[in-house]
């Protein structure tokens, strides 16, 4: 089964991390990716630029409405994601708990709705 693991965290707190901690964190992400890739569950994933670089688009009555910012103001923001292919929710939760971001933020585990 495929799951999208969404990494939500306070991006301001994250940006304020000292350089050495941030570097350690990046190394941990690299290690996580390599481990999951070797295990054969990794299907993709990216880091996202902060919500200050986000733009929202809506189409209403045929008109495109563009606005600065994320679609919702929340305490934690989407900072990245992984797509994994695992046996079941238990394995997805186990993988999610290994994401370095789980230490600082929250991982939302969403099953892919196969059409």
């Amino acid at each position: 089964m495929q799951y999208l693991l969404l990494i939500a965290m306070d991006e301001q707190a994250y940006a304020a991390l000292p350089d050495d901690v941030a570097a350690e964190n990046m190394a941990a992400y690299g290690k996580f990716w390599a481990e999951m890739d070797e295990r054969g569950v990794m299907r993709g994933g990216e880091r996202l630029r902060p919500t200050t670089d986000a733009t929202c688009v809506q189409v209403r009555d045929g008109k495109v409405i563009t606005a600065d910012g994320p679609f919702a103001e929340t305490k934690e923001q989407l900072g990245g994601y992984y797509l994994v292919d695992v046996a079941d929710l238990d394995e997805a939760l186990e993988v999610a708990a290994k994401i370095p971001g789980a230490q600082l933020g929250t991982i939302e585990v969403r099953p892919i709705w196969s059409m």
Partner: protein
Amino acid sequence: MSGPGPGGVPGGRVDEAVAVAYREEWGRIVATLIRVTGDWDLAEECAQDAFARAVERWPRDGVPRNPGAWLTTTARNVAIDRLRRAQSGRRKLEELAGIEERAMFAAPDDHRAEHESGIVDDRLRLVFTCCHPALALDAQVALTLREMVGLTTAEVARAFLVAEPTIAQRLVRAKRKIRNAGIPYRVPPRAVLPERVAAVLAVVYLLFNEGYSASDGDDLVRGALCDEAIRLCRTIAELMPDEPEVLGLLALMLLHDSRRAARVDAHGDIVLLEDQDRTQWDHDAIDAGLAALDRALALRDPGPYQVQAAIVACHARAPVPEATDWPQIAGLYGELARMTPSPVVELNRAVAIAMADGPGAGLARLEPLAASGVLTGYYLLPAARADLLRRAGRFGDAAVAYDEALGLVRTAPERRFLERRQAEVRAEVRAEDEERRPGRPRGGVDDPAA
């Protein structure tokens, strides 16, 4: 299929046989059908159908010698019919065909042998899935009662004082999440087993407490939750005989439940432990509880349920209140506070210390707890303080603390109890006043010098 028993069974006996079979077999049948078909709704419907057929046929044909096998086979046949009509997968049908053989030849009560042989009882899969932490706690509770225990949606609703459509929707959503989110139907692997066992036990204990707190006596369904929780825990203990906390919780519930008849008087008022008629305690339940605790402790892996059971066991072993081993209880609360730190545990520990070393020692522990404010709004804190002040002979202070407790208490029996105590300490205060002012008229007059 098992042969029918002697015909012409009296109607009452058949009803009883169906009721017993329902209690014993519902969870097992549902659990197996879920594993084979992967369809929770289908499993429930087929189990229901099998019992409906038993109600119809057993009075006519007699109660089968092995009702469990009869019901399993019947439910299986219903499932096969439905799957055939739905032209469903061939493997499911083959698996269903295999059930009959097992249902006929397996001794239905030999759970232990099954466990030891490595074949997992489907009911364990069911209970772990119902209590999966990815489900909301209220959904876990509703699912466990519906699928494992076999309560109807209406009964679950009554037990939790919630509208029936709410429970029905909760069940539908939970089953949908199990399917869509890919919650596996299995006993969790070793690495996560302790936390998952804890999740199951939390649901079982919640059921028990829900029943135990229903002291009004006007709702039998709620009271019956205690029996269901104990029965469920017993089943889990049979299926996982080496889990000490399962036995610990079983012991804890049995020991609490042994006092059921003595803890409320004829008016529905609470009778405190020290005032209970101990001959009214259920000594069979106490023996069973102590035996479960001994088995748990022999596994040498202590946990919070075992410690709590050991505390209740200290009371159960005391033939009179004065024989209670309070120093032991105070020590056990210390142990519990180490395992699961909480202000409520500290409160109980302070009371035990008061009983062991005198009210002064207990009050010395309560004061910082009260000052910290973590238990603000919790009526048992001022109630415990009031009781210790009363025992210390500080009746005026006790009366003030009882006032505070009465401002927070919610249920009627607890309120009546506090009011009784309040009246007692007020009477003591008056008596002291009179002693201090000999010859003065009753009620006294203003006398700033007094």
